[in-house]
């Protein structure tokens, strides 16, 4: 077997199930299209959601999957200074050109084949002009540049993310503009075709540096800052308790990623306010996106938070360093929960500082104040204040919940459970769109509204049965003290009643029965999944 064939074999062997799934999907698409075409039928989607479900989402998912596969992104640490190119390959008797070129060749070829197959087999709506060739070049260019940027060693931690987001975002924008303005194939090919060779030159340089262990370091430029940090850390007294020390470790390990991500994205979102002008809809859309940024990014940061292992590339199990801490499983989980609170607060402090600054500097604050004033006239000032506070509190609570709700799965350390849960969630989202569309199209919203209390009651029943089972297991295994169990139950009940009271006061209308609000409050306040986290960790830590 030649080196080129060996590299190809490694990709194929390692990701064979993903590739098989893709081939099956394409075969199904081809069969459907064959049936449609032979019968002389036209392809029409009755809504953009259907088109997105059948075509756009699978393409996007496959594209993302290919990015992860061919950049070796499934193995490395995106935020690290070191190259993400696997060091094990550096010792192979291959030239640097081959090390950089072969994965790029296979990746770009796979991307182009993917596009051509989708162009051929996907159910494109009749009457829509879909470009033939240039999207293949765009996908290949995006992959090649992603490879170059991820394999490059960087002088600062986290710089790779910033550079990649900016560069790939720019290329993505070019593609969207080309679609919007129906750019000529030849023009787009002229722009995109040189991108792969250019990316190859950069990738080769990156692999060459990584191969000789050359990782630039600009930390010297921040020496004074680092010195200040060291002095302040030395000034700090010893940790008052093991729990505080563990929470510090969790913060240093995972806590800073969410505020970091939010800090990177906020300027790009708020800069759009300058384009908003007096358009109320646009300003509110931007603010809506900004408010959703922390909970949305928290769902990504949660993957790290819910890991039981300190080493990012390690397996899912608890490493001896963590497992031999003289702390109970509940204390280890509590440290993660505390870190999630700090991380949420830090992210939201950024948002709460950036929003007024952005509104003020862009001159769009009047738009917001005007709308709030109108709302105040209609529902009164106290209700307006409560609504705003509730929205904020809801977003903040949702951010924290996103960070910690996967702990009960991640801390089990069982790869099959963790991967299975990801597939389940993805499956749910894939089915949710068509289901919602079916409900709307078949005019069943009224029936759904009538059935809502029953649905909520069933969900509450499941939640309470699960919570009861978990609490019994916690009590029997002595993982949590009796006092903690009682405190958690009391706090949860208090939170449920507080939310219920606010909902009754805010939405006091005969159309919404009070018991429905109680069901909503019970479902909204987390209990079962959080309580299961110590059980999950114990199952992992003491196998």
């Amino acid at each position, binding site marked *: 077997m030649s080196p080129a064939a060996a590299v190809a074999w490694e990709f194929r062997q390692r990701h064979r199930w993903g590739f098989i799934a893709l081939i099956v999907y394409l075969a199904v698409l081809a069969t459907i299209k064959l049936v449609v075409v032979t019968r002389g039928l036209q392809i029409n989607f009755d809504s953009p959601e259907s088109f997105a479900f059948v075509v756009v989402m699978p393409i996007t998912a496959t594209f993302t999957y290919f990015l992860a596969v061919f950049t070796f992104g499934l193995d490395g640490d995106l935020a690290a200074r070191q190259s993400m190119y696997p060091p094990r390959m550096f010792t192979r008797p291959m030239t640097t050109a081959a090390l950089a070129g072969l994965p790029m060749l296979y990746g770009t070829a796979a991307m182009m084949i993917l596009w051509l197959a989708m162009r051929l087999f996907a159910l494109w709506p009749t009457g829509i002009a879909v470009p033939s060739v240039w999207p293949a070049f765009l996908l290949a260019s995006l992959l090649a540049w992603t490879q170059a940027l991820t394999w490059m060693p960087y002088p600062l931690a986290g710089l790779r993310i910033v550079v990649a987001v900016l560069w790939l975002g720019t290329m993505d924008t070019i593609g969207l503009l080309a679609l919007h303005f129906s750019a000529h194939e030849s023009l787009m090919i002229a722009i995109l075709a040189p991108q792969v060779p250019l990316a190859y030159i950069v990738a080769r340089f990156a692999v060459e540096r990584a191969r000789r262990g050359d990782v630039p370091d600009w930390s010297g430029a921040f020496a004074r800052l680092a010195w200040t940090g060291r002095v302040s*850390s030395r000034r700090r007294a010893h940790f008052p308790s093991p729990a505080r020390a563990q929470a510090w470790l969790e913060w240093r*390990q995972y806590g800073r990623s969410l505020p970091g991500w939010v800090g990177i994205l906020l300027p790009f979102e708020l800069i759009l306010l300058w384009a908003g002008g007096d358009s109320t809809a646009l300003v509110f859309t931007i603010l809506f996106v900004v408010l959703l940024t922390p909970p949305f990014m928290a769902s990504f940061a949660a993957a790290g938070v819910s890991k039981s292992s300190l080493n990012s590339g390690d397996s899912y199990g608890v490493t001896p360093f963590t497992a031999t801490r*003289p702390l109970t499983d509940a204390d280890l989980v509590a440290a993660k929960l505390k870190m999630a609170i700090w991380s949420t607060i830090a992210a939201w402090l950024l948002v709460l500082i950036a929003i007024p600054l952005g509104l003020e500097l862009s001159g769009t604050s009047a738009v917001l104040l005007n709308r709030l004033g109108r709302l105040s006239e209609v529902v009164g000032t106290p209700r307006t204040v409560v609504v705003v506070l509730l929205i904020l509190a809801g977003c903040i609570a949702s951010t924290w919940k996103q960070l910690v709700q996967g702990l009960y799965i991640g801390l089990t350390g069982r790869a099959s459970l963790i991967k299975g849960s990801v597939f389940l969630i993805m499956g749910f989202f894939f089915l949710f769109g068509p289901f919602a569309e079916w409900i709307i199209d078949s005019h069943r919203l009224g029936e759904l509204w009538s059935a809502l209390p029953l649905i909520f009651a069933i969900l509450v029943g499941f939640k309470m049965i699960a919570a009861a089972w978990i609490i019994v297991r916690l009590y029997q295994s002595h993982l949590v003290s009796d006092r903690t169990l009682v405190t958690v139950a009391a706090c949860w009940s208090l939170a449920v009643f507080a939310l219920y009271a606010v909902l009754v006061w805010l939405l006091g209308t005969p159309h919404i029965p009070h018991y429905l609000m109680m069901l909503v409050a019970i479902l909204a306040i987390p209990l079962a999944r959080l309580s299961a986290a110590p059980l999950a960790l114990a199952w992992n830590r003491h196998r």
Partner: protein
Amino acid sequence: MSEPVIDVSGLTRRFGDKTALDSVSMSMPRGAVYGLVGANGAGKTTLIKHILGLLRAESGSVRVFGLDPVTDPVTVLSRIGYLSEENDLPPWMRIDELIRYTRAFYPAWDDPYAEELRQAFGLDSDAKIKSLSKGQKARAGLLTALAHQPELLVLDEPSSGLDPIVRRDILGAVIRTIADEGRTVLFSSHLLEEVEQVADHVTMIDHGKIVLSAPLDAIRESHRVDGRVPSLDEIFVARVGKSAKSPGV
């Protein structure tokens, strides 16, 4: 007679079809230096993981200081110093942060002793773990295992892949630990000549079973051939070495 520090009774553990530990029983008195020897995959690390509470006994029982390490991890682990073969210290931590973090868990942490060890091992407070050599990482791990003056020191293959100078530091730590009365060491190693230097009791484990467990002097005497006392290496090969010349090598 005082209660044993470690008391393992009829411990069996299976991973799928493979039996990693088969009815293992051992009792380790206070103040002893126990050498645990065996080939790769013999079950040494599995036994140590049970002692640390990282594995739950499927059958049989494990008691450390008279307690179950799974149900009472805080009490048990706070009295143990542990150095693992897989050095998994957080790579982003600086040495001073590692010391600050670790001392929080041990009320008996001895700051002057920790500083003495740091200087003796040549560890720079500002150095990050990831920038250290393998030997320096082992020294950093040893510092955190020793500085709280543990009642029980557990060393799982601590010398594996290290140079003679680091191995000397580890042996020195064992000797220093046992110099304090009432402290106990469980030392698993491939390097039998090291075990021979410090252990006063040796347990040989093979395919999950204890094939020999006795005081070192008694083992030597019982294997004496024509007046010559064989080395531990030779005894191991005689007992276990169906194929291996030397364990783990």
